[in-house]
């Protein structure tokens, strides 16, 4: 560590900040080949900036492939706290021959580029600062084992970037130790690589670009976590007992992380598991297991992505109609069909809202942040059991698989809510009348249920996806059918008041309203500032957090002349869903802004779209 500190001092001496510099407000893009170990290097870079107290976000733009195809990682440092993807790239690390030329050509004027020397990129543009680095020559002395060089090579650019941007190399070393944990040998090897890159840059380059990282104190107490891990923690603290799943990108890591946590924190006093996890044969079976377990009284869940949701459609209809709890995470990726499996989209909103044949409506939750992945997971389980229905949590690849800064999660204060379940004592009190499974006793549309195994002769009822009356008996009578469907609609109305309420993120007296949800939020907070500061357009912004929509959303639309619905899909799915819900005279107020190229939405695209529509 002593050497590191010396290097830190040396760095400040060698590369003195110039006037006109851009501090803590730029984006870095690392272009590599997937399967080359660049993920570790990029995480170390992200963590280094985070540890320097600078708000930062990282987005992995990777192919659906194990090794050999181009992959990009973008890091954004923002003193303003903007963590959406920045459209323009300011600082490029070009390691991939296949994409290097295109990557350089797409840079904004004044950008900088570190590149692997043999790629000979310097001649491509005059308005870019180039820093060629002979990575192969540098890696050989650091890494005697030839077969590891391909991986270690990537850690060299961390050192180079540290030196050029003024990132304290000690922070990278600290991040490395976190990254490699107990793998001491790997940590040492990679530390040496970071140092070699750092030393080379210090000795070789004169800083010519304006980009600098300087210490701030914006990240005090914060954590770094991906949305899937946050959701996994939410599930564990929600008291999940049955987890079923089928592997699918970008959802797998949710369950895999959950399994790790459950093994550590959910072993009962007898040393045995207080949970069951089953890797099902397909998503169809995973959904069936969730409903079977929910029927029998477990807190059950599965996690999937669009193709899995398609397969689950029949079961979701069964769950809706027979009124069974279950939590369904959909970590959305780009569809239709196989689509772009490793790219992000908010493409399953409309599909999930009415999934399955016949009249169905489902509760949907839209987390925007890692914190909400945690809290909404818990809310989803409570809602599923209180409303006896499948509940969807619609995350996406950007939120689920990328690292996000977050406030440490708050321990849940409310006890777990298990909903209206009658036990043997309740049935005894009810006496000879028994209970009617689908009767609206309380006027909220939510009936009472019993669990199999309840020791009372009147406990049992027969669950069926076919028509049934209040007593759960088979019925094809028109009045029974209508009564039941109307009660289900009433139940959904009740849910409006219980689902997470929308948040007024920007609230003023503007005539222009904006509605967004999920990860689109991060582009919106920035875009609202751009609209005001660059164009003098003041806006109010409401962030939706659930379907069915709360009254607040209706009021928000009523109180504005124009309302932009911003989202990440082609067909303006939330826009359509809102249209179905609002009064006819309000519909013409709605305007749509969509973004659907597979990359996380950026503020500039939103701002440009709104400015252009406002000009009309």
């Amino acid at each position, binding site marked *: 560590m002593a050497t590191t500190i010396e290097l830190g001092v040396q760095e400040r001496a060698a590369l003195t900040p110039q006037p006109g510099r851009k501090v803590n407000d730029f984006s870095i893009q690392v272009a590599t080949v997937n399967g080359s170990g660049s993920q570790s290097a990029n995480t170390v870079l992200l963590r280094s900036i985070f540890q320097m107290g600078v708000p930062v976000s990282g987005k992995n733009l990777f192919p659906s492939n194990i090794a050999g195809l181009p992959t990009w990682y973008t890091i954004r440092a923002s003193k303003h706290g903007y963590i959406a993807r920045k459209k323009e790239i300011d600082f490029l690390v070009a390691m991939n021959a296949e994409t290097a030329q295109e990557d350089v050509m797409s840079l904004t004027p004044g950008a900088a580029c570190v590149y692997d020397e043999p790629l000979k990129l310097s001649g491509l543009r005059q308005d870019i600062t180039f820093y060629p680095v002979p990575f192969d020559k540098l890696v050989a002395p650091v890494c005697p084992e030839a077969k590891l060089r391909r991986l270690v090579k990537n850690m060299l650019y961390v050192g180079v970037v540290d030196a050029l941007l003024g990132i304290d190399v000690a922070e990278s070393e600290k991040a490395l130790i976190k990254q490699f944990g107990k793998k001491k040998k790997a940590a040492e090897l990679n530390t040496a690589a970071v140092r070699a890159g750092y030393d080379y840059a210090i000795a070789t380059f004169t800083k010519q670009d304006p980009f600098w990282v300087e210490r701030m104190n914006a990240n005090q107490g914060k954590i770094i976590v991906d949305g899937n891990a946050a959701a996994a923690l939410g599930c564990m603290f929600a008291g999940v007992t049955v987890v079923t799943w089928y592997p699918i990108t970008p959802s797998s890591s949710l369950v895999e992380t959950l399994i790790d946590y459950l093994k550590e924190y959910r072993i009962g006093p007898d040393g045995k598991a207080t949970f*069951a996890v089953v890797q099902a044969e397909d998503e169809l079976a995973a959904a069936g297991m969730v409903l079977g377990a929910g029927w029998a009284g477990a807190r059950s869940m599965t996690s999937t992505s669009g193709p899995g949701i398609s397969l689950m459609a029949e079961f979701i209809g069964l769950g809706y109609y027979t009124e069974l709890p279950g939590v369904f995470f959909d970590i959305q990726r780009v569809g239709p069909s196989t689509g772009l499996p490793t790219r992000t989209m908010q493409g399953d909103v409309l599909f999930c809202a009415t999934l399955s044949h016949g009249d169905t409506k489902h509760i949907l939750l839209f987390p925007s942040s890692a914190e909400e992945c945690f809290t909404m997971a818990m809310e989803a389980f409570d809602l599923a059991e209180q409303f006896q229905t499948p509940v969807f949590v619609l995350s996406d690849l950007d939120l689920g698989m990328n690292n996000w800064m977050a406030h440490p999660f708050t321990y849940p204060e409310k006890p777990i809510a298990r909903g209206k379940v009658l036990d043997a004592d309740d049935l005894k009190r009810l006496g000879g009348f028994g209970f009617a499974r689908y009767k609206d006793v309380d006027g909220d549309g939510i009936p009472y249920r019993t669990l199999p195994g309840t020791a009372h002769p009147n406990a049992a009822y027969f669950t069926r996806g076919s028509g049934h009356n209040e007593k759960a008996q088979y019925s094809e009578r028109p009045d029974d059918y209508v009564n039941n469907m109307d009660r289900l609609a009433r139940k959904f109305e009740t849910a409006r008041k219980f689902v997470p309420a929308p948040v007024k993120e920007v609230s003023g007296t503007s005539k222009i309203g904006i509605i967004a949800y999920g990860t689109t939020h991060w582009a919106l907070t920035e875009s609202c500032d751009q609209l005001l500061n660059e164009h003098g357009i003041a806006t109010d912004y409401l962030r939706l957090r659930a379907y069915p929509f709360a009254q607040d959303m209706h009021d928000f639309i009523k109180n504005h002349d124009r309302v932009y619905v911003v989202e990440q899909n082609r067909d303006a799915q939330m826009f359509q869903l809102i249209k179905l819900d609002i009064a006819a005279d309000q519909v013409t107020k709605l305007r749509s802004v969509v973004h659907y190229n597979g990359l996380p939405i950026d503020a500039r695209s939103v701002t440009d779209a709104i400015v252009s529509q406002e000009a009309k």
Partner: protein
Amino acid sequence: MSATSTPTPAPKTNHLGLTVLDYRGGKTTLCAGCGHNAITERIIDAMYEMGVQPENIAKLSGIGCSSKTPAYFVNRAHGFNSVHGRMPSVATGVALANQKLMLIGVSGDGDTASIGIGQFIHLMRRNLPIIYIIEDNGVYGLTKGQFSATADLGSKLKTGVINDLPPIDTCALAIQLGATFVARSFSGDKKQLLNLLKAAIAHRGTVMLDVISPCVTFNDHEGSTKSYKYSKDHEEPVQEIGFIPSFENIDVDYDPGTTASVRMHDGSQLRLRKLDRDYDATDRVGALKLLAESHEKGEMLTGVFYVNATAPSFIEQLNLTETSLARMPEELTRPSRQALDEIMEELR
């Protein structure tokens, strides 16, 4: 009731003090004479005679005539008529949530061997504790008489259509995949079916019972290989099946030379008396050979093809805590504040 030909005369109450009426279900809506109704009657008898607590049973099914039948037995048990071919996954969820329930799943040949073959295969593979009954008539009843995938080659529909595809042998599949109690019976063979069901109740693991159950409306004619007449004429039991429940505590002598005795999970004895052939139902490879040969010969074998009373079930392999997951209190399912603090510290 139909308990007249059971080996021991049924007492008025079972050892729980319950009468057979406590195991009755709703009135059947299937055709008069349907094989499925006879199976329903045997299920009621078996549950009653074995003294299963009705509330501890969970009845599961998919879609089809067979899948309606859980409504016709043990009304005091929760039932779940799910979706076509997907009962195995629902059953798996139920078993995970409450390992103390006794699961009985009723399916048909369409529900199992066609639309549900994927889930069936994985259920067998997991050895989930369940009694899985296929009420097998070789045709789709509710959609009026199309062939199913268990219809025999050359079997004829009422319309004269001849089946030109080979049947799926669900018993052979089940054995190959890991089910630990695999048998075939005939709805008209009351004694054999009753004893098989009682042994099934005593088993811990997947019981796969394929019961040939003629469809009186669509597949009971000349040329059908799943008609009453054909089944009566061709049924060939591989053993005579006896069953001594654990609670009867009767020491019945048997000749080990002619009878194999299998000690079931609950201490009951399954007695398999040899008939024409020397057959060992604990030999998995032998079982597959027997079934393959029977296809060549066109035989309709019934009896216990395979039994392994000691293999661990799926639930045992999960190493679950004693309290059912469904009944687990918040103290056990929500980790402490300290746990969250510890995790947050790791993520800093």
